[in-house]
């Protein structure tokens, strides 16, 4: 039987480039929210270690082969890439795969572009860190999967606004460099 057609959150919006900066979409991974049940934190951490990860402390992210776990709030993290079957019963799990637009900003001056939209001190933001903050007026999860490359997660419904505002900041920075 023919399946329904799939669309990604930023389909037709990305990628965009501006000088040496690129904004592109990250797709394909399963994203599961993980919130440990009472008394299960140790077992949960052990189960996550078996996946090559662990339980991330506040403002941190752990990565393994093809998988990552990102702190997203109080007693909450997003498991990305790996399947969550081994965590059933240890934590509340929900599928978040389609709820978020994942944007990747790469190139020299990426931090200066984000300085137009993000009220955080990004000096020294490095792989292994995670932050919940604002992108303009949107709520976001910020990580750095590799040095110099930012991954920004915003609600799927706000993808168009996020792309527009980041692209606008990219063009504004390019205009400054040109004068």
């Amino acid at each position, binding site marked *: *039987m*023919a*399946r*329904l*057609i*799939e*669309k*990604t*959150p930023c389909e037709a919006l990305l990628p965009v480039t501006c000088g040496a900066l690129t904004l592109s979409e990250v797709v394909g991974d399963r994203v599961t*929210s993980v*919130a440990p*049940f*009472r*008394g299960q934190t140790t077992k949960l951490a052990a189960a996550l270690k078996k996946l090559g990860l662990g339980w991330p402390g506040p403002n941190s992210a752990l990565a393994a082969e093809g998988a990552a776990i990102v702190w997203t709030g109080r*007693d*909450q993290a997003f498991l990305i890439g790996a399947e969550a079957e081994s965590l059933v019963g240890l*934590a*509340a*799990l*929900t*599928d*978040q*795969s*389609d*709820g*978020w637009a994942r944007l990747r900003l790469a190139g020299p001056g990426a931090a200066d572009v984000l*300085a*137009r939209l*993000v*009220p*955080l*001190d990004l*000096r020294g933001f490095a792989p292994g860190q995670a932050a919940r903050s604002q992108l*303009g*007026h*949107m709520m976001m999860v910020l990580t750095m999967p590799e040095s110099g490359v930012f991954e920004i997660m915003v*609600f*799927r*419904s*706000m993808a*168009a*606004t*996020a792309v527009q*505002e980041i692209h*606008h*900041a990219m*063009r*504004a920075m*390019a*205009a*400054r460099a*040109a*004068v």
Partner: protein
Amino acid sequence: MRIAGRGLVDRGASVGFRFDGREHVGFAGDTLASALLAGGTRLLGRSFKYHRPRGVMTAGSEEPNALVTVGQGAASIPNVRATMQEIFPGLDAKSQNRWPSLGFDAMQVNDLLSPFFSAGFYYKTFMWPRAFWERLYEPAIRRAAGLGALSGKHNEDAYEKAFAFCDLLVIGSGPAGLMAALTAARAGADVILAEEDARMGGRLLAETEEVGGKPGHAWASEVLAELGAMANVRLMTRTTVTGAYDGGTFGALERVGLHLANAPADLPRECFWRIVARRAILASGAHERQIAFPMNDRPGIMTAGAVRAYLNRWGVAAGRRVAIFGNNDDAHRTARDLVSAGVEVAALIDVRDDAPQPAGYRLIAGGQVTGTRGRLGLREITVATSSGEERIEVDCLAVSGGWNPALHLACHMNGRPAWDETIAAFVPKPGMVPGLTACGAAAGTMTTAAALAEGRRAAEAALSDLGVAAKAVDLPQAENGGTRIRAFWEVTEGKGRAWLDFANDVTTKDVRLAAQENYRSVEHMKRYTTQGMAPDQGKNSNIAALAVLADATGRGIPETGTTTFRPPYVPVSIAAMGAGGQGAGFAPQRYTTSHAASAERGAPMIEAGLWYRPSYFPRPGETTWREACDREVMAVRQSVGVCDVSTLGKIDIQGKDAARFLDLVYTNTFSSLPVGRVRYGLMLREDGLVLDDGTTARLGDDHYLTTTTTAAAGLVMRHLEFVHQAHCPDWDVRMISVTEHWAQFAIAGPKARDLLNSMLLAPLDDGAFPFMGCGEIEIRGVPARLFRISFSGEAGYEIAVPARFGEGLFRDLVARAESMGGAAYGMEALNVLRIEKGFITHAEIHGRTTAFDIGLQGMVSKKKDCIGKAASERPGLSGAQREQLVGLRPVQPAKGFGAGSHLFNKDAKAVSANDQGYVTSVCWSPTLKTHLGLAFLKDGRARHGETVRLVDHLRGTDILCEVVNPVFFDPEGGRARG
């Protein structure tokens, strides 16, 4: 006139610009003020109240007179200081506040009538006749008032906001600031050096003194070259720090594109920065004061330091024959510099009898300027000494009454400065802004050598606070002359008004009048006279006005005190502070997965919260929204309709205490809900009024899915989080929003089951999905959730699929529905369907209604507690006096009415004392062929069958309605259960 061999402008780069329609030429590096002065243009504006001719007075952002409008059309900016506007090819500037021209301004008649326009005149006049105030006086005053005007057109230019963080913020790049920045930068700290001017160096650019054995500006260039090469230094020119806030946060306005011809479209004109600094150093220098003397406001009367700046930085002599008037040694530097440049100095009038004897120019010691002449430009001054009076012909008078440290930022957290007798000025006190230290002239330290030393010392102290080791930084040689001053505020001899606040046209007479009328406090004097309330915010007049007030009230200056300094330090355009918020940028747009398909069908959108939802789907030939809406309603009642309901909040709740938690937040019981069922629930606020209603599905023993109304989803989530964290933090329950992951569509109508079955491999087992049942199914190869619920009152389902399939599913459902004689339906039809069934929305549960009011008091379980239950039982929240939910049918079915109409007894007068209630929702019902309304009516449930009078005072409606049961259609509810 331009002086050969002087100034730092680039004489090889000439720049053409326009002022008041005439072409002028300057050099790259000129400001509008310096270029116009170079060409002999002295008249730049007309004063606020009296429309007196005015010219450039200063060389900085404190300029009170030379305010011009730059640019044309929507891009024009009023009240630009000519002293700050860099010229560029094609710059087009115009003077303000004059008609028909700068040379002849009709409103200068105000000057002749000046005795009637003294301080507070508008509190004493324009009182009679009363009717004339709104019709004549106010419009006339409004037209006459104001400096500069907005274009009235929508501004399309780009503005920007940005955030920056550093270890040390240095404010000002004169000698103190440069030393501070250098000291901190060499130690490896992250430094931001902010300078208001286009070029760094502060007064080193304006003076001839040497630093480190070379011209001051050359030494500055070397330091800046070193700073510019360091990765830990950010140099921000054209950036004014506008405010000091909590937590080391500073606001700053950067002029990014206002000095460029043909700026690229993407370049922001301005950027408003929020800078967070662990430590800050205020090296903002000082502003020179005027002296109040009769007729001291003519074009050509400037501050002595500004005359030096125009000569030394821009190579411009502000006059051909210059006199200087002062009370301190600093004024003599102007005379010396002018003489050395070959400009004629007629005399230096020093109020001190013991003024230092000069070489090269005439000194009149113990003299005062008692009058001036030259309406469109200074041509003569009158000088009085003990031996008599003389008139001197001059076209420029350079005045120095002393220097005021620019301490405004230090006072932004309500600290008051201290009076320093030795310099006759206020200075900042330590600790007024935590983490901020003033140094150099900003702290009252007036020599270059001392400023350099203080800058280094302040940086070393900051580094020590930050735990960073300082590296050695040598102090260059510099002048350490010191300057004597005799406090002197006004000349009391001579005839004519003496100005204090040039920008708001406030004179010494006005301040005396205020004191005389008992406005003796400096705060009252300020508001009564408007001194200090103009664009320069008193930078040129505060101290002198204070001195006059002190004298008039028999106090000293320290006891009279200062007013409060507030951000912003200079005017900031609202476009910069609101950057990114223009037009649609005001808020994020949230789009559903069906948005593109809906937009293709021409559906107009409404906003629910931040979501865009289709209002109706017009078909070719339909000319009004009602036609589409009526058709969509009948499609749902007779066939099948498809509607995107993804926007409703969906909260996933799991854990051993999930059931218990829902019993706590809902009025009714959810622990008794079987797995695979959905129940309607009511949630109260802690004050007992209704927060939200919705359905919650039980997906598993410890797994629930709660829905909320679209616009309040965030509010409900926050409420649930608060209840969990504050009231039951030990309970084993976890919650998270899944609104975005699932795209959800309602299919409703007699053919809904047929439509659903056409999507499935095998027809749906009705036993597995009775009315209010739920569970997992597979739809077109995709795992989905199915809920058998209805908001339309028809047989219906809601299908949820992961959002990646949302668009595909919507298009498929609508195509199938249309081929079955049905349609996609939007918010208008959704609203009609639910009103026909008496279902409430937040139009009815608007925050001031109780469960009793909406007739759902039976849903508040007697067997358990819940959030808000105790408060809901307070006296007055139930009973016959309450306005209760009813339905309304107009006695004449075709008579429509609006939400917000009020209800009265049939024969009562329609006044608020007789108010019986109000209408919350209305529609035309194509099903019942009548207008309908939902309303709240006092004791409404006991009044079914009564006729009431409905009046809409705003829209002019006055009709009779019958009060009925709000469930107008299918009251037994059989259609949904079928």
